[in-house]
């Protein structure tokens, strides 16, 4: 795999064909030295992206470092705890998308300009096609995969998935006896000072303050900015976004102060506090906003996706090792009911054994604290990733490729050695 291969044929220089022109252009892109440089840059990015997780949540890091074109790496990420370094001290660096695509071009160019398909090179072909597939898989995952939770108490059912990282403001019109009319505003629109107005909404909204993470104080005080609703008895304070997921199983809890005006009359409805704290997951605490003579229920909750099927939790078991608090096994015994597909079956979901159904995959993720609802319950992680199979394929390709490639060398080496 060296750059000295494939010199152009003599005479070709006078009238270069398209292919040779392409090779000439691609040659610098195909350089192995460039591969080494790019791989080294990847290492640095990954290394920094690891340190950054001390200060920022993993999803922030993934978005800023790995699923980005460009990243500003502040020196702060390496600082000892407590030390503060201004954020302008740092280095600019290409982000994960940039490096990924650069590697992809480098690899494709190398194959176009250098590699012929020979049986001896089969290993290299396998490895590289696997890596291309892997990079594409990660790209597709980054673009299309969604993650959410389904929380079900024992004996209860659920037919919607809550997105763990996206939130929405909801107005429910319950006046129809059969169907609730729901209007949702994604939390991404709730920016400080934003004015939101839409014919479908019963009110015009002015965002006084949106907090991506907050703490709730259940008392009235001078900090209490709401003039109506649940915010009269409590107030919220902004908190930094949760850092380092999973170890503490903490999630962000957004809240917002909203100033509402009646759509039709423009009448001032006051400042309201909406918060994820008001939603105990299964029975959201609502506040009633009356607009246009109709009562609406208003919530801020995790973005919901409704499914055509229902999962019923029949039983949930949680075993520990005797004499310890170390969990041994969590298990949800569920019944899956899907009228569209005529499915009605029982199954179990437990650690390392997910349920895959209609493109969604359900994993045993956590235990519902029985103190919240007075009942045991399960928290299922629900992932929809159209490209979930790609890593499996690509990894098989790469591993196989390495076996073939290094195997050919090893066998060759041992045979030569045996001869000598």
């Amino acid at each position, binding site marked *: 795999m060296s750059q000295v291969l494939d010199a152009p044929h003599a005479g070709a220089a006078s009238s270069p064909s398209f292919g040779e022109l392409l090779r000439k252009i691609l040659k610098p892109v195909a350089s192995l030295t460039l591969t080494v440089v790019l791989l080294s840059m990847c290492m640095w990015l990954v290394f920094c992206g690891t340190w950054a997780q001390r200060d920022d949540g993993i999803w922030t890091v993934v978005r800023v470092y790995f699923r980005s074109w460009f990243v500003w790496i502040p020196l702060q990420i390496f600082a000892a705890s407590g030390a503060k370094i201004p954020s302008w001290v740092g280095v600019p660096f290409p982000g994960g998308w940039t490096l990924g695509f650069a590697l992809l071009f480098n690899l494709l160019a190398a194959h176009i300009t250098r590699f012929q398909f020979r049986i*001896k090179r089969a290993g290299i072909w396998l490895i590289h096609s696997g890596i291309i597939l892997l990079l594409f898989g990660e790209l597709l995952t980054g673009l299309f995969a969604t993650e959410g939770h389904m929380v079900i108490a024992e004996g209860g059912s659920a037919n919607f998935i809550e997105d763990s990282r996206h939130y929405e403001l909801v107005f429910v019109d319950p006046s129809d006896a059969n169907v609730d009319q729901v209007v949702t505003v994604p939390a991404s629109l709730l920016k400080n000072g934003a004015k939101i107005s839409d014919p479908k909404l019963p009110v015009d909204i002015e965002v006084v303050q949106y907090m991506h993470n907050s703490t709730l104080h259940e008392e009235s005080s001078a900090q209490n900015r709401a003039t109506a609703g649940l915010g009269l008895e409590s107030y919220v304070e902004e908190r930094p976004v949760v850092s*380092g997921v999973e170890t503490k199983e903490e999630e962000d809890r957004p809240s917002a102060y909203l100033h509402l005006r009646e759509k039709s009359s423009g009448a001032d409805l006051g400042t309201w506090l909406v918060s994820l704290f008001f939603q105990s997951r299964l029975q959201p605490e609502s506040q009633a906003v009356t607009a246009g003579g109709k009562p609406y229920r208003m919530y801020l909750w995790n973005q919901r996706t409704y499914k055509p099927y229902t999962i019923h939790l029949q039983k949930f078991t949680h075993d520990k090792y005797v004499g*310890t608090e170390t969990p041994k096994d969590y298990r949800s015994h569920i019944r899956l009911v899907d009228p569209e597909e005529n499915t009605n079956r029982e199954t179990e979901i437990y650690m*390392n054994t997910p349920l895959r159904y209609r493109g969604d995959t359900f994993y045993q*993720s956590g235990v519902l604290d029985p103190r919240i609802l007075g009942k045991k319950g399960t928290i299922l992680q629900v992932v929809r990733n159209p490209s979930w199979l790609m890593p499996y394929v690509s990894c098989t390709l790469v591993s196989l490729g390495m076996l073939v490639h290094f195997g050919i060398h090893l066998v060759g080496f041992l045979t030569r050695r045996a001869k000598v």
Partner: protein
Amino acid sequence: MKANFFVPVITVSVFGIYLLGASFMPDLGNGKKDFDLAGARQIPVVDGGRVKPLDTVARTALRIVSGRESFYIGKEEQPAIRWALDVMSFDPDDKDSPVWNYEVFRIENDQVLNLLGLKPKEGFRYKLKDFSDKFEKLQAELDRIKKVPENNRTLYDNKIVQLKTHLDEFLKLRSLHDPLLLPPGSAGEEWRSLQEVEEEIGFKAIQTVMIKEGILPKDVKNLPPEEQKRLRREVQEEDARQLAAIPAAHEWRELLDAYRENKPADFNRLVAGYSKNLSFVPNRDQERASFEVFFNRAAPFYQCCFLYAAAAIIGCLSWMVWSEPLRRTAFWLMVLTALPHTFGLIARMYIQGRPPVTNLYSSAIFIGWGAVLGSLVMERLFPIGIANVVGAIGGFATSIIAHNLGSGNDTLQMMQAVLDTNFWLSTHVTCVTTGYAATFVAGLLGIVFIILGLFTPKLDKSTFKLLGQMIYGVVCFATFLSFTGTVLGGIWADQSWGRFWGWDPKENGAILIVLWNAIVLHARWCGLVQQRGMAIMTVFGNIVTSWSWFGTNMLGIGLHAYGFMEAAVPSLIIFDISQVAIMGIGLIPPKHWASFGGRYEVETKAKEPVREAKREPKPVPVSPVPVNIGSTAVTARRPR
């Protein structure tokens, strides 16, 4: 020729006899005169969620408290079980109890010693009596530290907290809360602690007597003293009656009393007859517990540490004098040492019913094992005495690391629910750790390359080429293993929480190893580096691997943060600095290298490495070892 045969045979035999003796010699006398401690240490109990012999509980607790698995009374070494039984039967009101006087509490921080009014002394192990009157001071400090956020605590604060955990370990044993001593008395029943059962019985006894007498407990103090005394006696009798109804609890109480009151005949009778209480403990658990006592005694990894050191020294000597006999000796000594090492790994797998790697401790053991086996294979392929040394150093270093990692806890813990899968533990974890081992072996070869080349004339033309090939081959192997292992981890993650890649620190650490190995290979292929450059690069691989192995855990974040260990941060930093230093001296131009100076044009200008090498005349073997495979250099067969 004779020396080539006899030197290895004699040396290996001597070490072999030592090994057999050390493994099968009976344990430290019997500790306490006339007491059947050998029988007591076999008793199965439950601790940390698994059935284990009392011996393991004793050793673990003593190791946590004192840093060793034995202690001294005067000059005489004593087994941990003696201390543990003394603690379990300890009566704090008994001022003559030997527990006050055992020198087992290791306190080495001078500020902590100062607080407790202790003077530094050799071994830093103190008696309970030495500082039992300072507990209030200690508590005051603990109350203060509790309010300090963990990140802002000083070394002193942490050492105080550490002393507290040591005392807790002692108290846990003393309160009979842990381990669970009482085996199930019927099918379906769980193991229970003696403390829990005695408390329950005590409560029930009072209740029974009060009901029988028709008195409320609060009225007892108004009764005449005589009457109170009678009631107390009644309660005691009732208590004894209830205890007798639970044979295991009754026997344990008798056993501990007999031990405290120095009645060997009673003690030995109870120990000998204890097995009748185990009818509802599966045979498999009892067999494992019994085997574990032997395993503890044999301490195979401890023996390995010593033997690997010997092999490394002999291996290094073989570079200087008497090469072939010593090279063979080192090789066969490694083979001998690999036996207890392998036995230890298999024994742990049997006791735990798990694949070899389940925590950081076992990863160290396994990495050492992989490095040793790989080196033995290499030494067969390239008999130049280098892989010997690399393997022995790898085995020795990982034994030391394992010893330090294992000092804090039972090394055979139960697995968290998500890790409770033998399939992924045996595929992903084994593969990734073998990848670590291969990367370290490459790094060690790199270090040997630099040191031999720079400081000795030993890196002659053929050794130079062979070593280059070895490094190249190991890096290929490391790339394959670390990639496959990382990917299997991804697949496991996809199976358990639906995320093939989560950018978790440990995952990132693993991918760094893959990337680095890939960089080394590509740099070699494109001629950016030659043998020497590759050797230097593999040394950096040591830093990358140590980061992945330990560094990521030190960040204290992420899904794999199961082995957080702040204490090891300085060691890691020192290791990394040493590796950078080695890389630095590796960069000294070849003309200053003792092996190259003026003799070989080995360090050719980059870009056209292989052609240069081909043009050179065939090397004349200078090494005393016949080397004749130089022409098959992997690098000469540049992949096209």
